[in-house]
């Protein structure tokens, strides 16, 4: 085939260009550190990467939710344990004062202490976490327990809903217990506040059978609180487990994402060196070929 003069130069230009472009592409992956600089670099890889990024952001969010939930549960747990302590104290008093050896005056003093316990329990029941009432159900801006004027009854002003958090795709967990679940329904005999009020009144009136009734009821109150704490404990455990699972999932996803997205620097640099060598060889060849000219020899 005939070789025209122009053909030689054209081909050199075209091939050098091609080699330069290849080098540029490899260079790009090294300087950006990323394999995927645009969707066309690896479309299917990108689809996978997008899914993984989504998963990772979801995992971060679930962790935030779980942290919030754990904080809420921890507050509730501490609160209920505190309640249990003072209810236990009330029980001790009731046991003592139901003994015939105690005098009316002593019982009157006990009544004062029980009154203090009542107010303390009420204070504890109105605990807040991050500015929200923990035992008010959804009515987190309303004080759940209010003592009426003559201090003969405590009303519950919250509702009966359990606050939930999202802990995973399609999975929620209830972290809130509303007041009645911990302190009893208002109309029941086992309603913590009524029990304390009646105990206080019985002590005041020196009514020993009354005191003994309330002793039994205090048992119910204490049991309910124990159950509530147990429930909280179980939930905190579940959250801890979920958190660990999420951590593992996060590591795996991050690794897979890195495989898809990040440049294998060693391989890329080797690639670049190879292409550079090829480019140099092409340059040398071009120089040699373009020097050959019949006019030099005639």
């Amino acid at each position, binding site marked *: *085939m*005939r*070789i*025209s*003069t*122009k*053909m030689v130069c*054209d*081909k050199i230009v*075209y091939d050098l260009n091609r080699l330069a472009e290849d080098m540029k592409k490899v260079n790009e992956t090294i300087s950006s550190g*990323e394999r*995927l*600089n*645009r*969707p*066309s*670099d*690896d*479309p*299917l890889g*990108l*689809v996978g*990467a*997008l*899914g993984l*990024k*989504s998963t990772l*952001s*979801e995992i*971060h*969010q679930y962790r*935030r*939710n779980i942290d*919030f939930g754990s904080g809420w549960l921890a507050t509730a747990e501490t609160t209920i344990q505190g309640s249990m302590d003072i209810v236990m104290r009330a029980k001790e008093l009731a046991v003592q004062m139901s003994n015939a050896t105690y005098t009316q005056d002593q019982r009157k003093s006990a009544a004062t202490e029980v009154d203090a316990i009542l107010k303390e329990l009420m204070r504890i029941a109105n605990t807040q976490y*991050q500015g*929200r009432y923990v035992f*008010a*159900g*959804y*009515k*987190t*801006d*309303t004080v759940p327990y209010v003592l009426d004027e003559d201090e003969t009854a405590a009303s519950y002003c919250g*509702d009966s*809903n359990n*606050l*939930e*958090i*999202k802990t995973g*795709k*399609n999975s*929620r967990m209830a972290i809130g217990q509303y007041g009645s679940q911990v302190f009893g329904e208002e109309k029941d005999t086992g309603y913590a506040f009524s029990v304390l009020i009646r105990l206080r009144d019985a002590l005041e009136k020196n009514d020993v059978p009354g005191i003994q009734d309330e002793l039994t009821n205090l048992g119910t109150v204490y049991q309910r609180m124990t159950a509530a704490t147990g429930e909280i404990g179980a939930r905190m455990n579940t959250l801890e487990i979920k958190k660990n699972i999420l951590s593992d999932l996060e590591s795996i996803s991050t690794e897979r994402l890195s495989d898809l*997205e990040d440049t294998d620097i060693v391989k890329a640099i080797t690639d670049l060196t190879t292409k550079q060598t090829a480019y140099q060889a092409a340059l040398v060849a071009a120089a040699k070929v373009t020097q050959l*000219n*019949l*006019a030099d020899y*005639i």
Partner: protein
Amino acid sequence: MSVSNVLEIAKTALIAQQKAVEVTSHNISNVNTPGYSRQTPVTEAVAPVEVSLGQLGGGVNVTEVKTAYDKFINMRIHKELSTLLGLEVKRDYTGAIEAIFNETRDAGLNDIFSQFWGAWEDLANNPGGTSERAALVQRGNLLTETFNTIYQDLEQFRQDIDIRVDAAIKDVNELAGQIAQLNVKILEFGAGGNPANDLTDQRNLLVEELSRFVDLNYFEDESGMLTILVGGGNPLVEGKIYNGLEMNFDGSGNLVINWVGSESSKLDITNYIQGGKLGGWLTVRDELIPGYETDLNALAEAVIKEVNRQHSQGVGLEAFSSVTGTYAVEDPTKALKTLDLPFGNEIAEGQSFTIWVYDGSGNAAQNDITIDSGSSLNNLIDYINTPSKVDNVTASKVDGKLKLEADSGYSFAFSNDSSNILMALGINTFFTGKDASDLGINPTVSGYPLNIAAARIGSDGGFAEGDNRNALDIVDLRDTACTILDTNSTFGDFLSSLVGEIGIDARAASRNYTFREAFIKDLEETREGLQGVSLDEEMTNLIRYQHAYQAAAKLIQLADEMLETLLAVQ
């Protein structure tokens, strides 16, 4: 058979070799001229003369200067060039489009979506918080703006193409004119009996440039004039006559290319243009980009629909004293379902929604409103305003939108909408708009974030600050598959597959281009081999002609000496 004959023969040799050298020098000076085809002098022995001995030759003649132009390889190259340029346009635009989706960096739609859902989850963890609400509005704006921007960028590409097509058509028309003029010149020149080689090369170059713009067919008639057909057989150039192209837009805003013949007869050849830059631009502008826009719009539409549907079921931190819908109705007397409301066909006739009216002391009145078959906006307004139906709330129309207003001291909120009427009219919704171009945040929510409906109303009409059920339900939308176009997928999956599709298109366009380019390079090399000038070859030829010239000069010298000898005879 005389000495003078020798002179005569030698003279022909001198002239012939001189001509050959001229042709060779022309070749040498044009070694780098694009489109130049090598010319070769064709020498023939002069017809012999009958003499008594037999035949005696008469020397040499340059009968013609032949060009190495090969019309077959050129025709092939022109066809391939049309295809290549079409692919180049496609490659360039898909490359630009994948850049605006920006998904490989952390500012793409995928990440912005993640942030949006994250904001909803943060709100679910603290429904009473104002900073969470403000953050949600901000992330929502980021989402809507990104959708808007991507759509506008895509439209910008289409407008960009309009400008390019306009300029290209002017170029095409001018090229057609120039080719026609060359046709005339070539004919005139050729009438003298000699082919106009350089003019033909020039014309060929113009045809090659033309084939970059649009795919064409051409042939040469006996007089050497070129006829060029474009777009399904319409003559762009026919001898000395040339026609033109023009561009226009059809009813749907698509680009139309017309062939304009004599007497201004027009023909729509848009569908016949397959290659060249015009072909590429037409495909990108009216097939490729609209395809992506459809997908983007479908995604935006699904997001609006699902989020609004869920949002309208809930209640914010306060009830409304007044609210206006975001979608306007053209004819308030026609059935809502049949009108052009963006989400009108979601309306479930026979289903109902509840509107709770609160007085100043916290008492709630429950009003269930059923959307009967064929209900119009006026029907709904009249019903609400009927005494004892929905007391203390007045309904009215404002620019075709439904407006509800509570009496002084009263407020209202919604729940349990199975009819989708609230979502269709844009009441208590989060987003406004119908697709990616006009997606926005409802001012009711962006102007007063307390209206973001994170909670739901209980069966007694009450609602609480710490209620996060509606927010959680909206968060669940992220993982819920819904119908988008003809697929059933989550928002994230649909977006991924759209971006994947663009990536695949871009990669395919790039690879196709590279492959074709290499193929054309091969063809061009073959053409160069056939037509091109090799300096070494020309040098060698120069030597050849030079020696022949020297020999011919020697002949003349010899004949001269012979004549002198003759004349010296006494």
